[in-house]
Each structure stands twice: as structure tokens, then as C-alpha cells.
């Protein structure tokens, strides 16, 4: 059935489009700024203020330097391991918890579990006790130290629970009548219907793993285990010295190093961030409408 658009709707749509275009341009700027800076000539970049709408010169020195670092490959590999392994664990545990907390059945300890989890959002022991615990459990120099602590985030569980609660109880009731138990309901009904919230959780947990470097810094001594963010951080620190030379001027070498030092932080951001930026568009396809068509009638 073809529906005629009212005049207000047309105005609204145009207006909406207009706002979206402006906002997209505005939010595209930071990435473009970083990208252009990373290939610019450092001296011209130093003297530049205001909007950067195109690269000032074109030099790939910063990128060469970063890629020359032998830890880049292992960095990516380690990060991928942590992201995949960590997120899988996160999703598994969060689903269990969210399912439990979203049941309408009378469960004696449901509220207690919720309270127990919420309290941990506010109170924690601090860095040192956590460090002592993790190392005490033997996870030093092991990627598990980046995967197991932080396996569940109460915040995420609560959001997932809200989503699970939105699934009509009638679906579960009919499944129960057919003889299903909680496990099969969780895995055969709830999860397939929750693709979009799972996609969001995968994104949130995944990005968290991707960006983390601090745990790696304190638990990993073997540099071959360093994830990419930590490798980048090292590179930045190594080159930061060159930029702060304050007693000497330059031979050609100092010049070169100072040049790279200025642009390397931008190159490092691009290298460490672009891969994860590609994940969201891929997950976007799960934000498709129509998952729940006809569910009411079912």
C-alpha cells in the first residue's frame, strides 16, 4: 500500500538529511585530522594552526618507523587473541547472568545476585589487591591475565537483561509447555532473537579489549605477548624523547628523529585504531529491523 507523504514529513526528512550531513562532516574531522597529520611534513605541521583540511606535504616516515618495529605483527596477533577469546567469554558469562536476572519466575536469590553485582560497580579493592590476586593465581606473563579478569561487566549485564526482558514471555511459556528447559530456551529462543543486543555487547566488550594496555603493561613481561596498544605506547615513548631535545640542536639525525617524533603519534593512532573501526559496519547488519515480526502472534 503506497502511503502519501505529508508536506511536514518531506520537510522533516530534508531537514533530517541536512543535519545528518553536517554532523557527519563535523564528526569525520577528528579522524581526517589524525590521518592528514600522520602523513604531513612535521615542520609545516608545527607551524600550522586551525583546521587541517589536507596533508601538509606527504611523508610516510612515521609509518615506516612504526612498521619496522618487530613487535607489530605479534602485537596484532595478541590483540586479536585477546579480543576474540575475551569477548567470547564475556558474551557467554553475560548471557548466563542476564538470562538469570531477567526471569519472571520467583527466584529466591535473584535480587541478592543483582545487588551483589551492582555493588561491584561501585566498590573495588584498587589496583594493588587486583594485581596481587592475578599474579597469585599464576597469570603473570599469560594472556589469560587480559581475558579472565573483567570477564563480566555488571553494566553490560544489566543492559542485556533489559533486552532479554523485552522478549515476550509467551514465547517461553509455549516452549516450556513443549518440554524445553532453561538451557534450551536460552540458546534456542532468547539468543537467536537477541542478535542486535549481542552485537552491541560484542562491540562494547570487543572495543574494551582492543583498547586496553594497562593490564598488559603490569602483567606481561614477555614482550612477544604485548598487544598492539602497548606496542604503540612503547613506540610513542621511544620517540617522545626526540621531540624534547632541549640542550642540543641538530645534526641531520636529530632532525630526522624530531620530524618523525612529531607525526608518529598520529600514525600510531591510525595503525592501532583503523582495524577496530572496521568492525562496526560489519556488525551493523545485525541492527536490522524486523527480527520480531509476528512474534506477538506466535
Amino acid at each position: 500500500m503506497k502511503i502519501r507523504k505529508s508536506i511536514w514529513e518531506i520537510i522533516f526528512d530534508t531537514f533530517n538529511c541536512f543535519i545528518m550531513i553536517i554532523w557527519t562532516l563535523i564528526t569525520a574531522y577528528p579522524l581526517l585530522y589524525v590521518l592528514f597529520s600522520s602523513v604531513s611534513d612535521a615542520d609545516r605541521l608545527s607551524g600550522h594552526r586551525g583546521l587541517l583540511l589536507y596533508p601538509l606535504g606527504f611523508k610516510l616516515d612515521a609509518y615506516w618507523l612504526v612498521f619496522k618495529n618487530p613487535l607489530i605483527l605479534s602485537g596484532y596477533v595478541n590483540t586479536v587473541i585477546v579480543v576474540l577469546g575475551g569477548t567470547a567469554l564475556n558474551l557467554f558469562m553475560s548471557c548466563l547472568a542476564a538470562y538469570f536476572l531477567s526471569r519472571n519466575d520467583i527466584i529466591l536469590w535473584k535480587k541478592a545476585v543483582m545487588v551483589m553485582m551492582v555493588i561491584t560497580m561501585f566498590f573495588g579493592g584498587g589496583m594493588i589487591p587486583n594485581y596481587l590476586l592475578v599474579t597469585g593465581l599464576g597469570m603473570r606473563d599469560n594472556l589469560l591475565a587480559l581475558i579472565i579478569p573483567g570477564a563480566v561487566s555488571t553494566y553490560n549485564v544489566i543492559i542485556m537483561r533489559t533486552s532479554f526482558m523485552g522478549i515476550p514471555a509467551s514465547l517461553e511459556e509455549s516452549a516450556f509447555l513443549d518440554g524445553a528447559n532453561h538451557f534450551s530456551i536460552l540458546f534456542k529462543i532468547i539468543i537467536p532473537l537477541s542478535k542486535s543486543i549481542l552485537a552491541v555487547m560484542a562491540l562494547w566488550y570487543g572495543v574494551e579489549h582492543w583498547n586496553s594496555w594497562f593490564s598488559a603493561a603490569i602483567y606481561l613481561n614477555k614482550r612477544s605477548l604485548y598487544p598492539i596498544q602497548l606496542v604503540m605506547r612503547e613506540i610513542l615513548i621511544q620517540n617522545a624523547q626526540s621531540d624534547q631535545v632541549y640542550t642540543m640542536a641538530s645534526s641531520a639525525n636529530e632532525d630526522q628523529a624530531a620530524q618523525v617524533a612529531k607525526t608518529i603519534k598520529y600514525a600510531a593512532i591510525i595503525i592501532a585504531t583503523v582495524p577496530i573501526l572496521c568492525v562496526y559496519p560489519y556488525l551493523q547488519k545485525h541492527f536490522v529491523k524486523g527480527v520480531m515480526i509476528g512474534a506477538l502472534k506466535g
Partner: protein
Amino acid sequence: MKTTLLKAACFTIAMLVFVTTLTACQAGSTTGSTTSSAASSGTSAAVTTTAGNAPVYPMKTDVKLTYWSEMNGNVSAKYTNAGETPFAKELSKRTGIQVEYIHSTAKESFSLMLASNQLPDIVEYWWSSYPGGTAKALEEKVIISLNDIMEKDAPNYTKWLKDHPDIARQIRWDDGSYVGFPFVNGDGRQTFVGRGPLIRKDLLDKKGLGIPETVDDWYNALLAFKSLGVKAPFTKAKGYLADFIARAYGIQLDADAWYIEDGKVVYGPVQPAYKDFLATWHKWYDEGLIDPDIATVDANIETAKMADGSAAATFNYVSRVYNYNKAAQEKIQGYNIVAAPFPVLKKGDAYEYSYISNLYSSSEVLTVITGNCKHPEIAARFLDYLWGEEGNILANWGIPDVTYTTGANKEPKYTDFLLKNPDGWTMSQVRGGYMRSYSSGPYVQDKRIDIQTYVMPEQVTAVDMWSKNASMKHLMPPIARTAQENTEYATIMSEVETYYKECLLKFMIGTMKLDEYDAYKAQMKNLKIDRAIEIQQAAYNRYISK
């Protein structure tokens, strides 16, 4: 504390007795250290072989020491661990002691290492930032003092202390303890001033003005810049609002806000002359001579403004001149930044309040032997090497014939391997690999190392000009507060500094009028600045009477 004092006293007396008897017996001894016979122990005090004394180094020992330090970027650029550097290898070869180097990976590494009780043998760290200060660390037996072992196992250091009683006095604690091996700037370095006012000479020439020398000259110069269309004649990155004008009034601010006037400790922002400085500073801001955005400028923006001509004067390290020139070369013809002398109030006045620092500072890095070390004598020997003649050269100049050569006049000279490294390494990176002089550490830094690395003649003249009349008159020596005083002091100062910084800007911009100055002073009193001055004065008095 008391037991240490007692121990130290007993030990000193015992040593004196022992040593005087020894020297009486060793008439005509040929130890390398001539004047320090009182300090020489039974074994050789000299590091190198001398007639009649067996060499100490290389030591024959299987003990392997663990050494914790922060990884410096100049080293990590080329090496993953300090143990891989030619410097470390040479040091181990010469001392005969094998060392395993452990590095921190994050700011918190130090605390975590302590908390999990994994103290290595030697730790190089800024112990003054330990909770409660270095004194607390000693008290808690995290670190040990050297007094018991230094005569025997750290003879070079002991001798150096004897030869430099002034600095030894600064290093020595009030109770006579020597803790750890400090970093010391060598003779002559304290009057090395590497930063100062920088100004656009080409613009001055356009207006026929000379390089400003007095505060009034500066006023005229900045006015001239303004008339040439410069939007922000004077600018500076936030955090260090260039108290170089304040110093003309006898006021030191920010990092050096505590200084000495005739034996009294004073705090710049409550000195009477501060009001006069504020008046001038406000006038300049009002007339648009100071960057209107000065509170928000960061280092990048400062460079950009200097380079694109929005600003024409600033205050910075002399090497920035090179950076500004490079950044500006495309846009501005004839761009020329030069160093200006520190301004004074009246022509011919001496610049008394100089930008110099102590040769020794207790907040610098300190290399200690920890309470966990099972072989403190070996650790002391290891660290002591750098305090002998050969060790000092190794630390400052590197490896003979690789990074330096000794000229006919016995003066060491850097080779091209350092100055113009064929593989593209920067000077700092070569230093990182072959010596310690890229940063502070447990050695004495030679004042000659910098001059050889200057490439621009302007640098040399600038540094000369700035250093030449540097005065030590008002310099605050390295005083030490007790742990108790420290907590009180820290609490008071965090509020005082916040208030001072806010008011400085408010007075400058005009949000606070100068007739509110008395209210400002009253509030400072309210925030207990007098108590802080008391604490500092007490620490100073203790220092003087050491």
C-alpha cells in the same frame, strides 16, 4: 632513626681510630687517593692498578645483581633492555659483576613491585616521591643506608664526598646518613642556563629597536610588535607563565617560588614586590601585549604561533630557536629569532634571581641498595665504579675510541660516531647505548659534554649570555623536610598553589583589581602560607647547620 644515628656515630669513631693507626703504619703508601688517607680502608682505595695494591676491578664473583630502573626512551629506541647496551656490557666487564636489568612498563610499576615484595637488589628511582619520602623508605627497610659499607665497598664515592664537602653536605641527611648513590651535576653546571627570553630580531630591526634589556625596553618592544600587527606579542605555553619579568622585580614564581633572601626563606607570591610585578603584568595584558589566550596555549600552539608570526616573543630553551626557524621558513621571509638577556628593572642592574639549579637535588633520581639485597657489598662496589675516574669517563663519554677519543691535552672529545652517527642514530640514542649521560643516574655529570654537541653557534652565544652573570645568591639549597612536615606542607601547598595560579591570571586579566591585593594576601594567610614558610625555614635552618 635513632639506632642508625648511634650506629653511624660509633662506626665513625671506630673508623677514625682504626684509620689513624693504619696511616701511622703505612707511611709512604702509594694509594691513588692522596689527600684522603683518612678515608682509605685496609684494601686499596684506588680503582685502577697502582703499585703495591691489587686492583679491585674486575671482581671475581658469581653474584648476579638485579637492577630496576625506568626505561628511558633514548635507550628503548634501539634496545629492549638496558642489559643489551654496550655501556652495560662494558660496565659489567670492567667491574666483573653481572647484572640483570628489569624495567618498569607503567607509572605504577614501582608501587606494584613494592606491594608484591619483589624488590630487586638495586633500584634507581625518584625516591623522594615515595609515600613519606626517602626517609620513610629507609625506616621501612625498603632501602638501606650506605654508612656501614661505604668506606670499604664504595671508596670512590667516599673519596668524592670528601673532595666535595659542600655537595656532600647537601647529600648527607640531617642525621648523617648517606643513602644511595645520587645524581650530581658536575662543577660548573649549576650556572648553566639553557633557557631564556627569545625574541624576533627581524621585527625589532624593522622598528629600529635594539634587543631589550630592561623591563621598559620590553614594554616598548612589545608595543612595537603590536603596531606591526602581531596579535599576541608575547606568548607562552601554560604551566610556566614566564616569571622572567617577575624576576626583574625580585620575585621568583612557579617551580622556583621558594627562594632565599638574606638567610630567610621566602615564597614569591607573597613577597611585597609581587604587587608591583602584577601591576606591570596587568598593564601589559590590558594593552594587548600579552597573548589574550595565554592561559590556554599549549606547547604545540606556542610553536605554531611563534612560527606563523602571531606571536613575536616567548621564553624557552635555546634549541627551540631551531624549531621555530624551521617551522617558519616557508611563510616568513627574514624570520630571525634570537636570545635576549634577562630583563632588569634599571639598566645596569644585576640579574640576581637567576634560573640556575643546584648541582644536587633530592628530588632527582636516586640509586639505592634495597633491603632485600643479599650482597650489599657487591652492589656497592658495582655502583661505586662510576664514581671513580675511569667510571666517570665511561658514564659521561662512553667507550674509548668508539664514542670518544682523548686529545693531546687529555681532554675527551666525542667522535663522529656520536656527533654524526653513520647509521642515523641521534646523539641521544648513541648516548643511550654507550653511556649514561643521556639522563640522570648514579654518577656525576661532566659539564663539558654539552658544548661539544652544539651545532648552532647561536646556541653557544645564547647560553653564554644567559649563564654569564648567573648568581647563586637566592638559590634555595636542597633542603629536606621530615615526613611529618611533608604531609602538612603538601596539604597546605596544594591549596596555596591553586589559589596563587588562579589569582595570577585574575589579576592579569583584570577580573581581580589591584586594590583587592590585600584581600589576596589575607586569603593566602588564611590558607596557612605562613605555616608553610615556617616549615621551609626550619628545614633550611637544619640544612645550614648541618
